[in-house]
C-alpha cells in the first residue's frame, strides 16, 4: 500500500537490507512474455516464505492480440506483506515493463518515485510505434518521477542460456525468468521453489524429457538475473518483507474459482449427493468447469452443454433425480438461465447457480470485473419468484460460500444463487487448509416411503418449510411436478385464486425464513459512528481496508459486510436504523442501494464505480471523507 513506500529511501549510500511492511509489484509484458507464470512464481515464493498476500491477474480480451500492442498486454499484480492484507494493492511500488505497450498501459498505477524495471529490448522504434506512442519514453524524460532501472534483459538472457544450445526466439522466451531472478534478489526471496517447479514442469519426468535444455536454460536465466542484480549497480539496495503473523496451520494459495471447485466437491461429499455440473464455457466462469472436470474420481458428472439453457436444465434434471445440481456462468449466461431458474423455484428443487460477474451490459467487458448482476439474479424472473442469494467476499471465501449455498439448497429445497466476480475468481490469496473432518455433514430432505400413506409432494417441513425430495427410483412415491402452479400439499396442478395466493406466500415465507438460519450481520469499526458503510461480495477487501484507514484518520464509521443478499441477516434493518447515514460502495450504479432502500424504506448514499476494476482503497477513503465532511 502506498503508505509503505515512505520506508524506501530514494538513494541509500550503500547496498543494504531495508525492511518494508508491504510491497505491490506488477509484472507487465506481452501475452507471449509469460507474465502470468512470472507472477505466480513470485507469489508462491512469497507465500512459502510466509508473507500474507493477494494477487490480481489482468488478461487481454483477445487470445493473442498482435504482439507489442496495448491490446496484447498481459499483467499480474501481487501485494505481499508482513501484515494482514485484504487487497492486491492500489498504487504500485514496482512496475516491471517488458515492452513499450506494457509501460503505456500500466505506468499510471506506479507510485511517484516507484521502481520501474524495463527491458530495453522492448523499446525499439517498432515497439514504440506498435504501442502508438509519440516518442520513446526512455528518452523523452516522461519517466523522470520514477526510479527507472533499464537493462537489455532479452540480450542478457540470450547470453545466459547460450551454453544450453538454446538460441533465438526460444532463448528469448527465458527472459521472464531472468526478470524473476532480478526481483527475487530485490526482495530477498530464495530461488529454490522456482527451481523445483521448473524441474517438475520441464524436467526429466515430463513430456519435455528429451528437451532438457528447456528446464536448464530457464534455471540459468533465473540465476543469471539474480546474480546480475546482485553484482551490477542497478539497485541501490534490496528490501525485506518479513513473515506475516498469520494464524498457525497449513496453507495453500487459492483463486476464487479453485475455491468454488473445492467447495462444491466438499458439499457433494458431505451431503452424499452426486455432484452434477452442467455448464457452457464463458469468461470468467470457465475455470470452474475446467477445475471440476479434473475430479472425475469424485464421481463428479461434468456436462458441457450446448448452451446455458441446457446447462441449467440438465442441472435441474439432476436435482430432480437426486443429484446436487450445479451450473455456473457469467452475466450473459445468467440471462439465458432465468426462465429455468423460475422452474427451479416452482418445483422447489435444490440447485446452485454460480454467477461469476463481469462487466456489462451485453457482451460488455468479458475479462473485467463488476458487481452489476445483483438485481438480475434477485428479480430477473417472471412472476414473484424468490430465491436465496449469497455472495463470496474473497477468493478463499468462495469455498465457504459454495459449501453454504449447497447447505441452504439441500436443507430448504430451493435454487440458490452464489455471486462471485472476475476479480475474486481470478485473484488468489493464502488459504488456511480446513480440517475436512470438521466440516459437518449436510441435511437433505430425502423422502422415505411410509406404508399406506400417499406421498404429498408439496407437504412442508414445519420448521424449514422445505418440501420432501422423492427421488425417481424410489418405489411407492411416483409423483409428477412441473412449472404450472402447484396445489398446496398435493403438488398437483391448480389454477384457483386462493391456492395461488397461498403458494406464493409459502414460497416467500420459505426463503424469508432462512434468515433464522444464517449469521447475524456484525458491525465492524465504530458501532456508534456517524455512518455505516455497507458492502457486499468481492469489494470486502478494499472497503474494509478503506474503512480501517478512515478510522485511523479519525472518521467515525461502522462497517457491515453482507455475504447474504437474500434474505438479509435478520438484524440488518435494526443496525441500519441505528446509524444516521448508510453508505453503500459497490461496483455498479447502485444495485444494493436499490435493494436496501426498497426493503427498509430508508435513504442511502451510494459510492459507485464501473471501471472494470476493483475500487482503489485511496479512492474509497477520499469518497468517505468527502461524504462525511459534507454531512457536517
Amino acid at each position, binding site marked *: 500500500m502506498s503508505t509503505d513506500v515512505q520506508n524506501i529511501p530514494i538513494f541509500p549510500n550503500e547496498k543494504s537490507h531495508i525492511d518494508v511492511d508491504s510491497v505491490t509489484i506488477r509484472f507487465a509484458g506481452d501475452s507471449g512474455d509469460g507474465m502470468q507464470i512470472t507472477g505466480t512464481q513470485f507469489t508462491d515464493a512469497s507465500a512459502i516464505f510466509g508473507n500474507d498476500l493477494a494477487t490480481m491477474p489482468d488478461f487481454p480480451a483477445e487470445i493473442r492480440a498482435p504482439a507489442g500492442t496495448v491490446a496484447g498486454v498481459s499483467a499480474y499484480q501481487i501485494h505481499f506483506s508482513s501484515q494482514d492484507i485484504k487487497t492486491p494493492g492500489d498504487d504500485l511500488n514496482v512496475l516491471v515493463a517488458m515492452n513499450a505497450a506494457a509501460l503505456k498501459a500500466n505506468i499510471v498505477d506506479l507510485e511517484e518515485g516507484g521502481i520501474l524495471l524495463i527491458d530495453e529490448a522492448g523499446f525499439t522504434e517498432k515497439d514504440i510505434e506498435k504501442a502508438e506512442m509519440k516518442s520513446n519514453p526512455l528518452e523523452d524524460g516522461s519517466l523522470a518521477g520514477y526510479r527507472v532501472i533499464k537493462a537489455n534483459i532479452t540480450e542478457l538472457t540470450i547470453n545466459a542460456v547460450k551454453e544450453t544450445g538454446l538460441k533465438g526466439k526460444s532463448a528469448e522466451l527465458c527472459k521472464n525468468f531472468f526478470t524473476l531472478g532480478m526481483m527475487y534478489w530485490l526482495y530477498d526471496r530464495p530461488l529454490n521453489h522456482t527451481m523445483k517447479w521448473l524441474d517438475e514442469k520441464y524436467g526429466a519426468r515430463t513430456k519435455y524429457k528429451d528437451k532438457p535444455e528447456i528446464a536448464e536454460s530457464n534455471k540459468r536465466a533465473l540465476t543469471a538475473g539474480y546474480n546480475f542484480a546482485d553484482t551490477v549497480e542497478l539497485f541501490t539496495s534490496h528490501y525485506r518483507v518479513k513473515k506475516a503473523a498469520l494464524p498457525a496451520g497449513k496453507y*495453500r494459495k487459492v483463486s476464487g474459482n479453485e475455491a468454488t471447485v473445492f467447495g462444491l466437491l466438499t458439499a457433494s461429499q458431505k451431503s452424499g449427493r452426486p455432484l452434477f455440473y452442467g455448464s457452457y464455457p464463458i469468461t470468467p466462469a470457465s475455470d470452474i468447469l475446467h477445475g471440476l472436470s479434473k475430479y472425475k474420481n469424485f464421481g463428479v458428472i461434468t456436462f458441457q452443454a450446448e448452451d446455458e439453457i441446457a446447462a441449467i*436444465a440438465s442441472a435441474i434434471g439432476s436435482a430432480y433425480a437426486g443429484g446436487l445440481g450445479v451450473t455456473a456462468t457469467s452475466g450473459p449466461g445468467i440471462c439465458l438461465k432465468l426462465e429455468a431458474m423460475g422452474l427451479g423455484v416452482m418445483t422447489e428443487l435444490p440447485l446452485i447457480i454460480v454467477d461469476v460477474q463481469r462487466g456489462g451490459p451485453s457482451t460488455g467487458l468479458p475479462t473485467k470485473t463488476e458487481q452489476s448482476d445483483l438485481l438480475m439474479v434477485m428479480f430477473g424472473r417472471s412472476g414473484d419468484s424468490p430465491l436465496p442469494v449469497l455472495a463470496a467476499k474473497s477468493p478463499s471465501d468462495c469455498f465457504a460460500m459454495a459449501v453454504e449455498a449447497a447447505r441452504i439448497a439441500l436443507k430448504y429445497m430451493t435454487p440458490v444463487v452464489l455471486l462471485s466476480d472476475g476479480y475474486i475468481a481470478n485473484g488468489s490469496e493464502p488459504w488456511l487448509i480446513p480440517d475436512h473432518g470438521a466440516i459437518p455433514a449436510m441435511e437433505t430432505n430425502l423422502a422415505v416411503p411410509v406404508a399406506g400413506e400417499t406421498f404429498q409432494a408439496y407437504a412442508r417441513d414445519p420448521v424449514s418449510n422445505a418440501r420432501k425430495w422423492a427421488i*425417481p427410483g424410489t418405489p*411407492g412415491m411416483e409423483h409428477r411436478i412441473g412449472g404450472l402452479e402447484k396445489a398446496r400439499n398435493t403438488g398437483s396442478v391448480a389454477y384457483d385464486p386462493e391456492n395461488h395466493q397461498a403458494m406464493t406466500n409459502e414460497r416467500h415465507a420459505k426463503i424469508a425464513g432462512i434468515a433464522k438460519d444464517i449469521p447475524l450481520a456484525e458491525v465492524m469499526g465504530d458501532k456508534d459512528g456517524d455512518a455505516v458503510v455497507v458492502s457486499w461480495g468481492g469489494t470486502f477487501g478494499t472497503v474494509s481496508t478503506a474503512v480501517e484507514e478512515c478510522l485511523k484518520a479519525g472518521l467515525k464509521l461502522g462497517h457491515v459486510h453482507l455475504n447474504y443478499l437474500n434474505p438479509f441477516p435478520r438484524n440488518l434493518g435494526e443496525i441500519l436504523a441505528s446509524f444516521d447515514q448508510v453508505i453503500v460502495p459497490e461496483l455498479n450504479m447502485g444495485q444494493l442501494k436499490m435493494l436496501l432502500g426498497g426493503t427498509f424504506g430508508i435513504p442511502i448514499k451510494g459510492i459507485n464505480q464501473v471501471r472494470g476494476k476493483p475500487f482503489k482503497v485511496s479512492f474509497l477513503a477520499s469518497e468517505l471523507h468527502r461524504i462525511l465532511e459534507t454531512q457536517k
Partner: protein
Amino acid sequence: MSTNTTVGTGPISPEPLTRKDFASPTAIRWCPGCGDYSILSTMQGILPTLGIPKENFVFVSGIGCSSRFPYYMNTYGFHTIHGRAPAVSTGVKLTNPNLQVWVITGDGDALSIGGNHFIHALRRNMDLKIILFNNRIYGLTKGQYSPTSGVGTVSPSTPYGSVDLPLSPISMALGAEAGFVARTSDNDVKHMGEVFAAAAAYKGAALVEVLQNCVIFADKIHEPYYGRATRNDSLLYLKHGEPLRYGKELEKGLVLDKMTIKSKVGPAENEVIVHDEKDASGALAFYLSRLSHPEFPVPVGVFKNVERPSYYDAMRGQIDAAAAKNPPSLEKLFNSGSTWTVE
C-alpha cells in the same frame, strides 16, 4: 460416499405390472377425439412388458398439449418448460442411469423452441426415448402453424398461408447423428406398440415420430396417407432386411435408378431395395426420409438402428477408472499443489 453415485434404485417389483398400474388418477384434459389418447394407452400397455420396475420409469416433457402426457402416467414425471425436456432428462439420466427416461414432446416443443436440445441429445446418444407427437400444429396455443406444417398452412399467425418449408423430424434426426430413428402413427396401435418396444430396447437416444391428429386445429392432417382406407397404398412399413415393398398386395416397390429412388409397380424381386436399418451412414434412412406423398409412399417403422456407446457409458467409464486409480479424498484435494506451514 462411493463414487458410483446412482440413487434410489428400486427392487424389481414382485408381481408383474399391468396397464392399470400406469393409469394416473388425474383427469385427462385432452379434447375428445385427440390422437394423444391412443398414444397414452399404447404406452400404458407397453411399459408392463419391459420388465422394469414402475418406479424406474420417468416421463419428462416440455410444454404443449402433448406435454401434459406425464400427468396421465402413474410414474415419476416432470412437466418442464417449453422445449427443454431433452436437456432436463439428460440430467436425470446421467445422475441415475437405472431410470428409463421417456421424453414426451410436440413438433413445436421439439423442433421449434427446443430444436437445439433435440439435436444435441441425439448427437450425444443420451439414453433417452424421445416420442415426438407430430400433429403439425401448435395445439395448446390455439392453432398457429409449426415447423412441420406444410407450405401454405392457414393459421391464426399465417392468415395468408405459411411460406416456410417444413422440417422432417426424421431427416433432422438423421442429420443430427441419431442412432435410432423411427416413425409410427396414432391410428395404428399395434405398430405403435412395436416401435415403442424397439425404442425401449435401444441403448442410447431413440427418436420416434408419431403421426398424431389434432381434431381441433389440424384435423385429418395425416389422413391422405395414413387413413385406414388408403393406408396400404400410401404407407411403407419398414422391416429390416426386407425389400421396400408396399401396396395392398405389396405389388409396388422402391427401386434404384442411378442414384435416385423410383417407385415401380411389379418390380423384379432383386430389383427392390432391401431395407437396412443397420447402415451406419444413415444414408438410405435419410433417402427414405425424403420420400414424400403422393409421389412416394410414407415410410413408417424403424429407419435407423445402429449401436454405439451411449454418452452415459462412456462417461461412467472415465469416472470409474479415475476413482479406481485415485479414490476421492478431500484431504488429498485440499492439500494438492504447493502448500506451506505457518507455525
